[in-house]
């Protein structure tokens, strides 16, 4: 499937080209515009039709339920691609001034990129700011950019340690609580069976940023047009110190994440753990059927044994400025992520962001046969409350991710220290940001 990969690279380039001008427009005036939900309620009553771009599998059931509840609203559901593919289209539509949807799914990491140039509606004007108390702190922070609210959180991905219990039991390895123990487990497992690896990682920007996040790093900060990048802060150093040992000790599988080989390795035990977002159980159950009964969930290992986590993945639904009926679009978003839309989302295996749902006894006490009857949501909900605070992504994170392979990826490939790769990444990002009209400072 190298063909597909090459085309993605081209698509990323085109996206970057489209952004070159999109980012040139001035940042949105972020003066607080708070309003009430009256106009949203009125729009819902009046009815109409909106277009919704998403790739989440639960969308079909959600839209059907919404249309049943509000028969005078027609939602035109479009899957315009997963992740990057959709962003390319969204960016093109924004640049062209038309052709975009009213509501779009946007991952948290991509949100600033669309929010800062003023392409999205600040939902504070509809009084949605009062919903803050209903969401986990980390997801609410993710949808808030410069005090403006650019969406309501849907799924979240507080990280946890998914481990193959069969492997761990067979070789008498204890479930690691700290990263030092994780390192030991990696060595022990690989020594016991050289075909097995603690995890697979060939360099993934989403994983890298999440790991720096958990280690307490704050590599990116944005204030208006001023951006600060420091990929060599204390958090980044903490993480690379551990991960360098795994990479250089050849203790990591080089199977590419999300490839067919990767799914295979998750099923047959040759990849023994995954440190990833709380949405992973749904993927396990639908697509790693061979691993049923073998896997279990534990809190993410930490540096000092005290519980702390980070977010990995997850997305929000945002209203586009381009929308001809933003109040109705906002009403749909409210229903989707702060109303009856949450139930079908959870039912289809999604991991929510709403604290009431996360802490409901039915959710917490559910036992999962895939995980040997474990109450996995207890672990995952605890993780959602332990996410390190104060993280933000770059206003051009998608571009950053697209050039990660040329910089940090090389460290993985050559077995050199990740820190030097991070420095190269930083240099590229500083240059790019300055070209885009940001004032970027390093360090």
């Amino acid at each position, binding site marked *: *499937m190298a063909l*597909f990969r090459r*085309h993605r690279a*081209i*698509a990323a380039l*085109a996206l970057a*080209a*489209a952004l070159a001008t999109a980012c040139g427009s001035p940042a949105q005036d972020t003066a607080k515009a708070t309003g009430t939900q009256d106009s949203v309620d009125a729009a819902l009553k009046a009815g109409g039709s909106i277009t919704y*771009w998403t*790739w*989440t*599998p*639960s969308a079909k059931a959600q839209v059907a339920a919404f249309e049943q509840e509000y028969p005078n609203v027609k939602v035109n559901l*479009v*899957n*315009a*691609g*997963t*992740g990057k*593919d959709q962003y*390319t*289209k969204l960016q*093109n*539509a924004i*640049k*062209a*001034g*038309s*052709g975009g949807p009213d509501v779009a799914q946007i991952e948290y990491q991509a949100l600033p990129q669309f929010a800062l140039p003023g392409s999205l509606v600040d939902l504070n004007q509809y009084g949605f700011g009062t919903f803050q108390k209903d969401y986990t702190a980390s997801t609410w922070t993710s949808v808030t950019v410069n005090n403006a609210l650019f969406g309501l959180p849907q*799924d979240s*991905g507080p990280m946890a340690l998914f481990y193959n219990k069969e492997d761990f039991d067979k070789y008498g390895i204890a479930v690691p609580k700290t990263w030092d123990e994780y390192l030991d487990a990696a060595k022990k497992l690989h020594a016991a069976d050289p075909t097995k690896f603690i995890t697979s990682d060939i360099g993934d920007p989403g994983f890298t940023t999440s790991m720096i996040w958990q280690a307490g790093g704050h590599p990116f900060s944005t204030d208006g047009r001023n951006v600060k990048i420091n990929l060599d802060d204390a958090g980044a150093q903490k993480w690379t110190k551990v991960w360098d040992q795994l990479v250089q000790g050849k203790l990591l599988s080089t199977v590419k994440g*999300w*490839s*067919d080989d990767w*799914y*295979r390795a998750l*099923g*047959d035990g040759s990849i023994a753990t995954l440190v990833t*977002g709380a*949405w992973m159980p*749904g*993927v396990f159950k*639908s*697509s*790693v*059927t*061979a691993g049923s009964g073998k896997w279990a969930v534990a809190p993410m290992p930490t540096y000092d044994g005290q519980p702390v986590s980070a977010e990995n*993945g*997850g*997305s929000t639904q945002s209203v586009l400025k381009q929308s001809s009926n933003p109040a109705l679009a906002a009403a749909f978003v409210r229903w989707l992520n702060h109303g009856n839309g949450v139930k079908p989302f959870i039912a289809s*295996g*999604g991991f929510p962001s709403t604290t009431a749902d996360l802490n409901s006894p039915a959710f917490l006490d559910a036992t999962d046969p895939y995980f040997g009857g474990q109450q996995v949501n207890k672990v995952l909900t605890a993780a959602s409350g332990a996410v390190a605070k104060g993280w933000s992504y770059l206003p051009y994170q998608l571009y950053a991710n697209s050039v990660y392979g040329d910089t940090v990826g090389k460290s993985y490939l050559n077995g050199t220290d990740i820190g030097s790769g991070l420095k190269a990444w930083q240099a590229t990002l500083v240059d790019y940001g300055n070209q885009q009209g940001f004032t970027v400072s390093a360090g």
Partner: protein
Amino acid sequence: MSSVLRPRRSRTLTAVMALYLLYTLIPLAWLLISATKTQPDLLSTPGLSFGGVFALFDNIGQTFTYNNGIFLRWLGNTLLYVVVGAGGATVLATAAGYGLAKYRFRGRQAVFAVVLGAIAVPGTALAVPTFLLFSRLGLTDTPLAVIIPSLISPFGLYLIWVYATDAIPDEMMEAARIDGAGEIRIFLAVTLRQLAPGIVTVALFAVVATWNNYFLPLIMLSDPNWYPLTVGLNQWNAQAIGAAAQPVYNLVITGSVLTIVPLVIAFLFLQRFWQSGLTAGSVKQ
């Protein structure tokens, strides 16, 4: 002894050709074998061996029914883009190439330069500007956004031009003129036949290019109902990534097999013309 009719055999060449054959056939074998596996088998058995069950027909059935049978719609879209886009490209390239080869007029050299220059610009580089242009015209997210750019084939035009220069003697056209035929009639009744091998070559190029076209429709279309097979299959492939991933590799692979079948058939049927087209002008008469 070797001669022109009995060329000497070269072991090295045979070995190189055998390697090349393997290089070409192994991915195809992988594709065909994989298409017979179920999704779990695909993820649990080695690439070039068969799975536990022979699921080819089941996979084909699933491919055509998954997501309310959208694959069939994509197949129809691809056919539409190929018939109208590649067909139109062939017609335009033939008419223009012939005209440029056989008529002398002012600005001919300039046209020649523009066409040659156009060959050098990769279509991918033009995709984003084309998108913005089409967006102004309100044509994005419609089939026309894929068809109109497909109509232009500078390479096809050049090929016909070169071919027509050699294949159609000026004397023949003179004779037709003396017999009283108009220029249009000369083109349609006399020279078109001569151009047939060239036209088939251009048509094949255009069909393959349109059939495999990925980037242009990816940018132009956001409604999956207008996707061609290439973009649609990639969407299925991308489903395997990230939160709420739903890998359907078995359908991506079976879909790929189904996608190449029509192309293979087109090549087998048109091979004869294709070969004679490629060697045109290689012998001085």
